[in-house]
């Protein structure tokens, strides 16, 4: 019969974690990440957790992390995309030949400010079209995603090859390269401003969530818990900005840039990189994708379809069209990842994005996306990408042989899924 409401009454004995409404899975992932970082820091005599390495780790993660957010939606709807690395290569090739061949042939010479935006639009359109094609084959022609994208893995890798005749294409446009990471950063002051804005946004989000709950007379957390949440988010954001701001531009690089402007560098002049534009792009992608997942109908339909495709269909959701949308989104994100990856290299190469499908799927799955569908988070996938990248660069710094690196990464993927299955059984969640 009637049990008392769990939200009030003396029966409700809550742990601090519950009061804060923290996600235990998220805490577990953060814990794993911290352990990985600390272990490598010890093994490398403190070289792992330097501002320089953290900066590099961050910009190396961006491309895979961007694609992993899209892979969450793909896997949540019970599909898979094995073609993301190859799709990235085709988008990268399209952007590279647009800026080095098509546009110059049309009279837009090197350095023209229109080159970067046009190349990016061409790349995004390429990704969207190929993604939509995949989605149509899967949704409307009912070919399993595994097969469509396994075919795509081979097709798009070689379309990229064909487009570029197997040549490396570069150097890419200077403006275009700004999104590569070290080639384009906001600088110290800009980084602090962005940090402040981020903290303000976090505070507003927390306050608004509380107001909405009060308005509908739902139970709210105690004020101290909200305060603690704000303090933790502020500390994390400012800590991240401070770290990136602590990585100083090498003196020789600074001197060269002064010389390029025909000036001499003052004695003792220093400058730091700050937040890279590519990281801002990843943050923007993360915010938009989280908003889509949680607050839009599209996101609700993605999760409903993953949870029970028949129920979604009976509720009037057009699940075929939904599949097209999900894969189109995946294609667009591959194009963004291609932009970051090729800008970071400063050229398009034939093997760009090779094995990224493995990294992207691993990031999503390590980040808690259930292969059975219906469950997954954007922040989890990004954290998963960060964990994968930390493992890989950590091992490289320690001097682990290349074959062993890959053996470890592959094993971690399998073990992560096992841990996830055990965790879900324990908590009774799916």
């Amino acid at each position, binding site marked *: 019969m*009637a049990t008392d409401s769990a939200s009030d009454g003396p029966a409700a004995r809550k742990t601090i974690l519950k009061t804060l409404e923290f996600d235990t899975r998220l805490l577990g992932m953060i814990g794993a990440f911290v352990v990985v970082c600390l272990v490598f820091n010890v093994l490398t005599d403190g070289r792992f957790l330097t501002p320089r390495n953290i900066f590099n780790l961050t910009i190396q993660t961006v491309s895979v992390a961007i694609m992993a957010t899209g892979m969450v939606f793909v896997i949540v709807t019970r599909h898979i995309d094995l073609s993301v690395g190859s799709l990235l290569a085709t988008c990268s090739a399209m952007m590279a030949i647009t800026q080095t061949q098509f546009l110059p042939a049309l009279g837009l010479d090197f350095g023209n400010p229109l080159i970067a935006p046009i190349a990016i639009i061409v790349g995004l359109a390429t990704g969207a079209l190929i993604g939509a094609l995949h989605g149509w084959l899967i949704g409307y022609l009912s070919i399993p995603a595994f097969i469509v994208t396994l075919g795509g893995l081979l097709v798009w890798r070689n379309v990229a090859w064909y487009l570029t005749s197997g040549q490396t294409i570069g150097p890419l446009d200077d403006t275009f390269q700004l999104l590569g990471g070290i080639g384009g950063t906001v600088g110290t002051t800009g980084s602090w401003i962005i940090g402040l804005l981020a903290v303000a946004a976090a505070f507003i989000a927390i306050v608004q969530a509380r107001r*909405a709950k009060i308005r*509908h007379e739902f139970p709210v957390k105690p004020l101290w818990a909200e305060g603690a949440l704000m303090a933790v988010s502020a500390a994390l954001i400012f800590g991240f900005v401070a770290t990136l701001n602590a990585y100083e531009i090498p003196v020789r690089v600074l001197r060269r840039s002064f010389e390029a402007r025909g000036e001499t560098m003052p004695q003792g002049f220093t400058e730091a990189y700050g937040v890279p534009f590519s990281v801002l792009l990843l943050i923007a992608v993360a915010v938009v994708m989280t908003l889509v997942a949680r607050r839009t109908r599209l996101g609700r339909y993605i*999760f409903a379809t993953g*949870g*029970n495709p028949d129920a979604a269909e*009976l*509720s009037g959701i057009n699940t075929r069209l939904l599949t097209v949308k999900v894969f189109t989104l995946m294609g667009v994100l591959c194009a963004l990842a291609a932009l970051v990856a090729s800008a970071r290299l400063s050229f398009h190469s034939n093997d760009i994005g090779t094995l990224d499908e493995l990294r992207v799927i691993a990031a999503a799955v390590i980040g808690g996306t259930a292969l059975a569908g219906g469950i997954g988070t954007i922040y989890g996938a990004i954290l998963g990408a960060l964990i994968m990248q930390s493992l890989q660069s950590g091992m490289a710094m320690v001097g682990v042989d290349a074959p062993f690196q890959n053996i470890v990464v592959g094993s971690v993927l399998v073990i992560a899924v096992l841990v996830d299955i055990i965790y879900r059984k324990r908590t009774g969640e799916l």
Partner: protein
Amino acid sequence: MAARTDTPLVEMRDVSVAFGGVKAVDHVSIDLYPGEVVGLLGHNGAGKSTLIKCLSGANKMDTGEILINGEKVEIHNPRDARRYNIETIYQTLALADNLDAASNLFLGRELITATGLMDDSRMEAETRKVMGRLNANFKKFKSPVKALSGGQRQSVAIARAVYFDARILIMDEPTAALGPEETRMVAELIEELKAQGIGIFLIEHDIHSVMDLCDRASVMKNGKLVGTVNVADVTDEDILGMIILGKTPAPAS
């Protein structure tokens, strides 16, 4: 009993559905008037669910037509059915297990704010209201419906069907997972909806509920319609005879 002078709310004429070689529904015609409850009876596998799924847009008909208020309509998918204010409680409940009660209740018809984003708190508040009427013991608004008992899940499915001003309600074994008290609440709900002029197709195995709640009963056997009777004119044994033997009682309607 509803007045029979006007046109029926729903008419399904000569409906057939085959799955491979199995004739799941074989030239069946049934109808429904406003404010009427028509029971649909028959053994498991008789074709009841398949028949009503043609009306809710989940199945395609091989032959036959559907008329609503005397006009022929085309129902090809669940969205079409919703446009004609047809709501369905499926035997399988058709819930997304990973979502909470409010998300399921509003699935496909989410409330949105002025900015075009979903208004989750309003949806939850509305869900609390309607669940308060249907099943006052229901408290698990934040959990995915996977974590709910069979009865609670059934309440969510019922709430979804009655929330959106249905004119035609299809209930496929709505009390299968419910306890006696919840079953009584559903019976009261059916009376209330009937009084509002809603037409209800009720698939139900319990013969006493049928005798209590239904105005007419249509009995199916092996995909064929055995017959339709006025419940007031027959005994429960007559109806059981129709279900088991496939024979209409002497004073057939």
